[in-house]
């Protein structure tokens, strides 16, 4: 059954393989510097590696935007995104998988009455703009660096061509790796919270975790997309959108690969963090926007005469249209799936304002005056509570979101063997698992109850008011672990 549900994610993977590989190898294949077969093979290998080794960072960010909690919901969200991509690509406009999946997830949030985390949405949306600008900047900088180098090198044209060819392979591989790392979240990210895969030990040598298996399936679907449809898209990208010379193609590709990597690498993120440098959020960005940014950057560095503004306009239109269309299709599809096909697209969740939760809200320092209207009541959607509390006019959106999370009923029972059976214990240290074992079979009604119980121990302690990026990152890591526990220990 899981495979049927996964089909929509695989369809999305296929469309990503078909579309986004064109952004990596389009110019190289179109200028005949690389043969399609070679480009497809390099893309397949390195996209898969990137997805498996570094795909978790951007997935986390997408998860914070909206954690689709039912397999049926994940299926519909991915399907909506895939349909949107197919429709827009049919119109001959390159489209971003990142934007469609975000639109579709927000569609699920609206349908299931959840509040969208505007903080995450803002991080993601601003990253799209930032990625575009950064890519243009890097490409322009590379152009200024490479131009005098090429002019001074006095390398023979044939020799130069041969070196560019090798460089296109190496940089293309890096680009494909970064694409896999950055964009796998778009393909199977929505399935991560509901992944039913268990760890598999390969001859006792290494273990492939459940999430990695999910990523592997996503990566394979991307590979199918590359081999079945990407050649046509490469032609469109390389010929119609921006005809680049091999050197400029290489510069654009390098800029794209760097940007995708910056937005995907947890290793780099941690390194920047440890050096107390500003970090770049791990967000799935659009390879289309990034390559367009790089081409614009090179165009501007050349004096801005060769930029085809009408094509840029068409692409920019898709940047706005894609999430909106995906949102609408997602909402409609969820409605149909729930009401016509009677599928579970969301977990039944309730929110209760009883003595325990009101006391906790008070303890957390929120004003309970505005809670008079909800006191003693039970709600089934976040939106309903939000409307009630907002009408009081005393609480800010952030405060309401926090209050809702306290009131949320999420029945759990600590079950370490279950955690191990699902292969999720790998995210935890020995000490943490030992601690969890001490609470074996303990029941909790709210997420904050489990969090507060564990926070008494140093392993799960968080900074109340994190100031530095390092402290914020620590909190994010602990929060990630807690999310895993909330899902794993859930009982009906």
């Amino acid at each position, binding site marked *: 059954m899981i495979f049927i549900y996964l089909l929509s994610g695989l369809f999305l993977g296929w469309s990503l393989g078909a579309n986004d590989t064109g952004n990596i190898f389009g110019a190289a294949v179109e200028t*005949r510097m690389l043969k399609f077969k070679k480009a497809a093979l390099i893309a397949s290998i390195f996209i898969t590696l990137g997805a498996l080794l570094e795909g978790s960072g951007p997935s986390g960010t997408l998860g914070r935007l909206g954690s689709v909690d039912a397999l049926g919901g994940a299926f519909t969200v991915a399907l909506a995104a895939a349909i949107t991509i197919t429709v827009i690509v049919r119109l001959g406009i390159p489209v971003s998988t990142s934007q469609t999946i975000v639109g579709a997830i927000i569609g699920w949030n609206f349908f299931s009455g959840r509040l969208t985390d505007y903080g995450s949405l803002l991080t993601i949306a601003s990253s799209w703009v930032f990625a575009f600008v950064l890519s243009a900047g890097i490409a322009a900088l590379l152009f200024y660096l490479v131009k005098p180098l090429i002019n001074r090198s006095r390398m023979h044209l044939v020799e130069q061509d*041969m070196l560019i060819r090798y460089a296109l392979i190496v940089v293309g591989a890096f680009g494909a790796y970064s694409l896999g790392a950055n964009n796998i979240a778009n393909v199977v990210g929505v399935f991560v919270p509901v992944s039913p895969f268990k760890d598999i030990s390969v001859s006792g040598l290494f273990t492939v975790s459940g999430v990695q298996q999910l990523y592997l399936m996503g990566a394979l679907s991307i590979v199918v997309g590359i081999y079945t449809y990407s050649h046509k898209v490469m032609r469109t990208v390389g010929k119609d959108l921006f005809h680049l010379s091999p050197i*400029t193609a290489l510069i654009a590709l390098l800029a794209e690969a760097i940007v995708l990597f910056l937005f995907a690498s947890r290793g780099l993120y941690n390194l920047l963090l440890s050096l107390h440098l500003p970090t770049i959020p791990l967000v799935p960005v659009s390879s289309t926007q990034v390559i367009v940014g790089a081409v614009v950057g090179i165009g501007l560095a050349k004096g801005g005469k060769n930029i085809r503004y009408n094509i840029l306009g068409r692409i920019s239109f898709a940047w706005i249209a894609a999430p909106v269309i995906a949102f609408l299709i997602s909402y409609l599809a969820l409605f149909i799936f729930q009401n016509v096909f009677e599928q579970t697209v969301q977990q039944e969740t309730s929110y209760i304002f009883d003595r325990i939760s009101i006391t906790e809200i008070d303890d957390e320092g929120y004003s309970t005056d505005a809670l008079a209207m909800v006191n003693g009541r039970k709600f089934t959607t976040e939106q309903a509570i939000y409307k009630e509390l907002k009408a009081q006019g005393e609480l800010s959106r952030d405060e309401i979101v926090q209050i809702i999370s306290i009131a949320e009923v999420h029945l759990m029972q600590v079950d370490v063997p279950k955690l191990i059976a699902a292969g999720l214990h790998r995210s935890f240290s020995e000490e943490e698992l030992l601690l969890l074992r001490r609470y074996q079979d303990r029941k909790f009604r709210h997420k904050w109850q489990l969090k507060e119980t564990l926070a008494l121990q140093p392993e799960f302690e968080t900074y109340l008011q994190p100031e530095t990026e390092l402290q914020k990152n620590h909190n994010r890591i602990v929060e990630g672990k807690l999310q895993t526990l909330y899902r794993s220990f859930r009982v009906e």
Partner: protein
Amino acid sequence: MALLLKTTRFVESQIDTFLDIVSDSATTFQLAIEDYLAGRIDQFEERLSQIREFEHRADDLRVSIERFLYERTLIPENRGDVLAILENTDEVIDNIKDSLLQFSIELPQIPEALDDLWMQTTRASVAAVEQLVFAVRSFFRDLAAVNNYIHKVYFFEREADHIGERLRRQIFGMDIELSRKSQLRFFAIHIEKISDAAQNVCDRLSIYTIKRQL
């Protein structure tokens, strides 16, 4: 690195050899005209056979380079341009050979009074070809220098036209038969055509250079 570039080095040396042949042909042409004007017809015939040999070798090299570039799919973006440059440059050798061949067949009687202008026209045309060889070499290795050489080709081509015109005026101002005047004019124009061929290559080369610029 050396191993990676082994394939390219071979075709690079072929292109260089081809351009050496063009340059040698131009120099040999000048020597052949000097021999002819000095009445050393045997030596002139020897030069002609040398040029015939050059022409064969240049043709073979051009075909070999062409085949190599296509078979190894090298410089796909510039391949058409490079082959056009080589083909057009090859035509310069053809012009040189044709000119000398006509001398060998018709053995025109050139009055001594014309020797100086005749040599000046020849030197200007040969200089245009030599600058063309520099320009083509630069196209492969030093793009920034191409325009300088192209400029010089244009200069020598104009110079050849200018001196050639003076030569023809002098021919028709002489007291010789009209048929002889007509024959001499034909040979004078033949020498000017060599620099015209060099200029034709440069017309293309300047466009290809713009295309290659970053």
